[in-house]
């Protein structure tokens, strides 16, 4: 039996800069301190993001990963994407078009859908697994 922890979706503020990111940090801190935090940051309201804002996102990602969790972004505007590209962090984050997609991505391969009695290589290698079994 597997128990999946909830995925938390948080909204980023309109202006995500040095000032607002501090307040945001206080809000998200308790979530990041949990075991294996699973967070999706909804950026649909974000109108401007600066270097300090991106720093804060990286800090949050780092904290989440330290605890074996992840932090993903969704609903980025073209402007925000350009800023992330400019700062070379667009490849660091997983970015999704909607919050639903972001949440779903955490459960992309749920443990309970894989039959527990099947040998590991049949799931991974498919046909090869069948051949090995036959031999």
């Amino acid at each position, binding site marked *: 039996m597997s128990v999946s922890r909830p995925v938390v979706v948080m909204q980023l503020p309109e202006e995500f800069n040095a000032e607002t990111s501090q307040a945001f940090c206080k809000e998200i801190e308790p979530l990041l301190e949990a075991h294996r935090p699973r967070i999706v940051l909804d950026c649909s309201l974000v109108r*401007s993001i600066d*270097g300090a804002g991106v720093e804060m996102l990286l800090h949050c990602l780092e904290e989440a990963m330290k605890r074996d969790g992840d932090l993903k972004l969704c609903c980025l505007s073209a402007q925000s*994407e*350009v800023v992330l*590209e*400019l700062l070379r962090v667009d490849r660091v984050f997983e970015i999704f078009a909607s919050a639903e997609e972001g949440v779903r991505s955490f459960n992309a391969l749920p443990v309970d859908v894989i039959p527990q009695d099947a040998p590991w290589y049949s799931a991974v290698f498919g046909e090869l697994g069948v051949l090995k079994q036959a031999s």
Partner: protein
Amino acid sequence: MLGAIVLVTGGSEDPRQAFTAAESGASSIGTTDRPHELPMACIEVLGSSILARMTSEFRRIGVDEVSLLIDEMFSSRRDEIEQSVPELAPVWTSDVSRAVAQTLAAYKESGIETCILTLASVYAEFDLSDTLQFHRAHQQPVTRVLDGKGLLDFWVVKVDGISEVADIFASLQGLQASSYIVSGYVRRLEHLRDLRCLVVDSLTSRCRMRPQGFEVRPGVWLAEGAQVHRRARIVAPAFLGSATKIEEQCLITRCSNVESNSQVDFGTVVEDSSVLSNSYIGMGLDLTHSVVDGSRLLNLRRDVTLEIKDPGLIGPNKSSGMDANSRSLLSFGMDSISARRERRSFNSETESTYSLL
């Protein structure tokens, strides 16, 4: 005698709009319809503005008098516009049409018979001498220049025919005109994207426009005073304008141009991008498919314009002038060969940080 009038006007209130639209059926092109912006033709591209290139071409073919008329809507950028064409004293006017008529009247008095009238909204490569010959041969009061896409905002007019009329554009419309078709390179300057295309075409030799500087390596152009850190890489084709500064671990490549007095800071990659004059690009950035003008960034791939408020990322360049550790092209001599020779000796010096490549 021959004269030329170059107009820099806005888009939306441009009096010639009716004329252009009526003749070509196409939407007209303004130099810009945003008064706070610098007109496209005044923006430095590969070391020199289109306006400066245009006027020097007029001088080259023997135009006796060149007048530059600028719409007062651009008065907030007066210094930059005047710096873009230092050899001309522009006339600022709120009524462009009347100013043209007055200039033509003055030309008539000084004995000028033929006048080139152009809006600085297009970069076109064609034989002006041939156009003038065509105009004389056809004996029409107006010769309009066009290409396959329509009018090029370029006319040759007989000064006698239209100098008395106040509304010059209406009178041009009313007069009989012959059409001179251009088959050479034409780039209409409607958007910063067009300037970027012009840079790419120039650096890849698709047009005749040459960067203002020295080709220190095949495809790598440097203007006087450009400083490149010895651990920076410039991969052709690329252009660095005068007094630019490229810091350590930077990479400038894929037809990128960094215009005068700009700085690219440590570790930044500039790829397929234009950095307009007096801009600062901060440390560790990836600038791709973009045009930067001070704190404004236009991403051409996403068609998004950003106003960057963080001066540590992108902004106007506040530091200009030579670094104590730097050496410039100026100190190397004025031709690329001597620059290359000097470079060899320069690279052997261990105490200096900046070199030509």
